[in-house]
């Protein structure tokens, strides 16, 4: 019994999953597979409440969404409820608003995650040095992530982007006056460039998130190897390209994946800053609107199914990148 516990434990340290491809973990794996049957339910018991809870709360609603997506169901016309076939999907795919919001969702996620990753990595590299006030700088850099999203969106909309008295145009006025001009440009940021305004605010909020994960990764680097490379005359650029970057790859992937999970679902900023107007709606907002304001349950569900299918396709690839996380020792 004790031998069994030890060996099964060995396979499941951060070192390797039970079905790792080849390697020493396969040999260690065998005793676990031959584990006596009665133990199985005892081992499973602690897992079941959480698993059951997740299936009931997150999976069953999707089944319901799937069923409703094939129904003609608008809460405003309760008598017309019935089977609709694939009509909702046809409407969903031909609806220019919905297509636009699919495009926006992809645009937001890709741009925000990539820019935040690059900025976050740059900041992490800058903070991975010893300098005066490092702790303080790190603290104020975290702040954007700790402002409640809807509160941050309100501040960006009213206190920063407002064309008359927002901080941005106020600063422009101030700078222009400094140079003696009384006629500074005062653009209406959200009306002119709604998507850029939303993305700027979200990049501001998510860069600290990326920075924190990447900074932790940088600090786990084996410094002796880097010092050896320095002694051998490697330039900082060479060290970055051939040592830091490969080492940081998994942290970049982790930060990118987690960031995407949250940014793709973003609702608060779109809702607060533009209310989905000016062609800036993303899928969460459009589905919310179709269901909550238009009360078209069938169409909202069809859109939901499309999102889920799209996400599953993307997530299948994304999960492959995280699957390395369970294998890597250092993570």
């Amino acid at each position, binding site marked *: 019994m004790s031998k069994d516990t030890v060996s099964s434990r060995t396979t*499941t340290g951060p070192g390797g999953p039970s079905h790792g491809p080849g390697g020493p973990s396969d040999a260690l794996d065998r005793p676990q597979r031959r584990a006596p049957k009665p133990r199985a339910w005892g081992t*499973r018991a602690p897992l079941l409440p959480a698993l059951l809870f997740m299936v009931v709360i997150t999976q069953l609603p999707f089944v319901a969404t799937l069923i409703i997506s094939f129904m003609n169901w608008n809460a405003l016309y309760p008598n017309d409820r019935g089977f609709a076939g694939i009509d909702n999907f046809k409407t969903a795919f031909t609806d220019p608003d919905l297509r636009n919001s699919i495009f926006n969702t992809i645009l937001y996620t890709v741009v925000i995650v990539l820019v935040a990753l690059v900025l976050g990595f740059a900041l992490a590299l800058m903070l991975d040095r010893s300098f005066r006030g490092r702790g303080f700088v790190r603290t*104020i850099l975290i702040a954007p992530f700790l402002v409640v999203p809807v509160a941050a969106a309100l501040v960006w909309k009213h206190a920063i982007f407002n064309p008359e008295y927002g901080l941005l145009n106020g600063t422009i006025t101030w700078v222009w006056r400094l140079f003696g001009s009384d006629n500074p440009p005062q653009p209406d940021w959200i009306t002119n460039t709604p998507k850029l305004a939303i993305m700027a605010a979200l990049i501001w909020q998510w860069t600290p998130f990326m920075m924190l994960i990447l900074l*932790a990764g940088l600090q786990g680097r084996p*410094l002796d190897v880097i010092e050896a490379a320095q002694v051998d005359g490697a330039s900082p650029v060479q060290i970055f390209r051939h040592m830091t970057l490969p080492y940081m790859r998994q942290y970049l992937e*982790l930060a990118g994946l987690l960031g995407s999970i949250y940014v793709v*679902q973003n609702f608060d900023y779109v809702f607060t800053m533009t209310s989905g107007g000016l062609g800036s709606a993303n899928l969460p907002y459009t*589905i919310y609107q179709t269901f909550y304001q238009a009360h078209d349950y069938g169409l909202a569900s069809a859109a939901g199914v499309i999102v889920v299918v799209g996400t599953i396709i993307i997530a299948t690839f994304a999960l492959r990148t995280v*699957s390395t996380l369970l294998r890597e020792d250092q993570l």
Partner: protein
Amino acid sequence: MSTTTAAPTTSGASTTGPRHKKQSNRSKALTVLTWLVAILFFVPVAWMVLTSLHSEQDAATNPPSVLAPLTTQGYREFFGATSGASPWPSLINSAYASIGSTILVLILAIPAAYALSIRPVRKWSDVMFFFLSTKMLPAVAGLLPIYLIAQNLGLLDNINLMVVLYTAMNLPIAVWMMRSFLAEIPIAILEAARIDGAGLLMTFRKILIPMSAPGIAATSLICFIFAWNEMLFARVLTGVRSATSPVFLTSFVTSQGLFLAKVCAAAVAVSLPVLIAGFAAQDKLVQGLSLGAVK
């Protein structure tokens, strides 16, 4: 914290005088740049706090009046000085939903993490990916059926519904985090406890929970923050009685007249619990955000 760019001591004895000086200059420039970028990122937060302490007249000037006299009028307005609408019920609802769901998450996640790390079930990594995949499905797609079910069960505008939903929202993250923390506990200690005759409950109480306490703290912090921040579900499923503070915040904003100071005061007040918790536990924040992957 040695570095790649500026560490004369590590670049060996070959470092000559002029090169040393050049590197140190570059290091200084980099420090200044770091400070500038950090301040730039902090400006919106600082501006939010500063505006919240200005009068409405001073808040709405162009160019901005940075040095205007400070006042707590904005906060008094937020706490219902003239409107009579107190934010307290919504703040209490938010605290109830966030803390309640965090406790529920821990109760479910710790045993699950045990079954995924210390005495693992078969195919434990598949189970891990199932948990993570539920995080990838956009929550909004499940919103309608949850609304309809809640309507039929009479659970709309009930804060306990939010507790259950926030638990589901955070449970996958918590399982991932707790698994990585429990996997750190040396097997020898658990073996010793077993030989001494400690049962499962005793092992949890005396060994697993105390030893993974920092991990539990990190998990709680992250779950609390995400639950406190959530707005989409709260907006659809809560109403008069159970509105959380993000919902109160959106309804508080009126689009007429001078209201900037009030909005900023509201934003600060609602963000304060998260700001305090996050600043107080920065290292926990890092552990939590990386799902426990970074220690």
